[in-house]
């Protein structure tokens, strides 16, 4: 029981921290600041999904977390590549 409670508490703490990071995504003076904030938010979402999968015993949440991690990486690289004039960001 204590493990489930700890997992749910960690997920709740991550939701609060995600709301804090959202401030930078809204405010952030440059485009890259927003991309950094959204990237951190995506990582937090992946971890929250994994925590909920273990706490609530829903195995398919891990599949969703995997797909979300892939899309998050592709999103960050794509926005980085297309906000500069001449490619080459990797």
């Amino acid at each position, binding site marked *: 029981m*204590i*493990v489930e409670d*700890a*997992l749910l*508490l*960690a997920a709740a*703490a*991550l939701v609060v*921290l995600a709301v*804090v*990071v959202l*401030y*930078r995504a809204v405010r952030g003076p*440059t*485009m*890259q*600041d927003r*991309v*950094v*904030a959204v*990237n*951190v938010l995506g*990582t*937090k979402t*992946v*971890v929250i999904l*994994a*925590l909920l*999968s*273990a*706490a609530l015993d829903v*195995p398919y949440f*891990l*599949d969703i*977390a*995997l797909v979300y*991690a*892939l899309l*998050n*990486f592709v999103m*960050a*690289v794509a926005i*980085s*590549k297309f*906000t*500069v*004039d*001449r490619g*080459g*960001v*990797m």
Partner: protein
Amino acid sequence: MTPLEVAIVALLVGGVFFTFVTAVGVIRLPDVYARAHTASQTDTLGAGLLLVGVALAIGLETTTIKTALLLAFVFITNPTAAHAIARAADEEGIEPWREDQ
């Protein structure tokens, strides 16, 4: 509490602490390069600790492989994405923050 539960709770506390450090860094640090640095390092470590905790909590099943895969993937892609963002910022001509400005 069994030793396994102690290990899981310790990993979760460590992961939440490093995620908290990430949130503070993204909000408080002065420019985009410093923020990309905190996003690549502390966020990767925090996510890694939390995912190891999840893997221990699930136990030895087939779904644990997915957690390990997720862990390896986060460890590879998170610093790469931060590098791409920082390099895009450099090509946009954003000046690094300096204390004497």
